[in-house]
């Protein structure tokens, strides 16, 4: 079974901090994704990566950046955290977009 592991289940940070969310997958998938999930809005794509060191902006990239130095690891960075970035963050991976995406259990991030 594919396993996608997010480093933290719950995280509390302060406004203005630089925040790192880490995600690791163990199935050698080419594609990795970061979403945020908010009630009533569903999942929205922040960034995705289709190969090492390659990235593409999703629908809501503002205030975020990403890093993919190794195939199995995809990091989401909040450059200067703000309260409106309080949310559930979900990482996913897939071999290609005709195949299902496999999700981690999420990081619930609170910015105070």
């Amino acid at each position, binding site marked *: 079974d594919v396993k996608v592991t997010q480093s933290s289940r719950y995280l509390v940070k302060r406004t203005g901090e630089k925040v790192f969310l880490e995600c690791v997958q163990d199935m050698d998938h080419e594609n990795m994704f970061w979403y945020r999930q908010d009630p009533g809005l569903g*999942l929205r794509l922040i960034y995705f990566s289709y190969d090492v060191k390659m990235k593409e902006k999703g629908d809501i990239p503002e205030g975020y950046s990403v890093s993919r130095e190794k195939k199995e690891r995809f990091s989401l960075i909040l450059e200067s955290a703000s309260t409106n970035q309080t949310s559930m963050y979900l990482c996913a991976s897939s071999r290609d*977009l005709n195949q299902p995406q496999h*999700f981690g259990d999420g990081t619930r991030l609170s910015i105070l």
Partner: protein
Amino acid sequence: AQSVAQPEDQVNVAEGNPLTVKCTYSVSGNPYLFWYVQYPNRGLQFLLKYITGDNLVKGSYGFEAEFNKSQTSFHLKKPSALVSDSALYFCAVRSLMNTGFQKLVFGTGTRLLVSP
């Protein structure tokens, strides 16, 4: 742009009764459609997908979905609901971005509550 709509925020059904969770889509070309389920404090899990072929797609945990091109719908169904089916369900469609890359566009989710 490709999109999906889930018109019901919540669906209530008694255990043992059939359930339907609705999804309609708007795409240009042939749709690639997916259903995912999210249990409390967990990520999304894949249930089933439609790419081409039979309009009735069978998936995990006894779920199935019916693709209807004339009604642009892809409703999720199960003949007999279980209390353990209570969860949040998401419909999704593959969408082409301006950059030429593809992404999934998710609906807003439908909460299914199955009562004993």
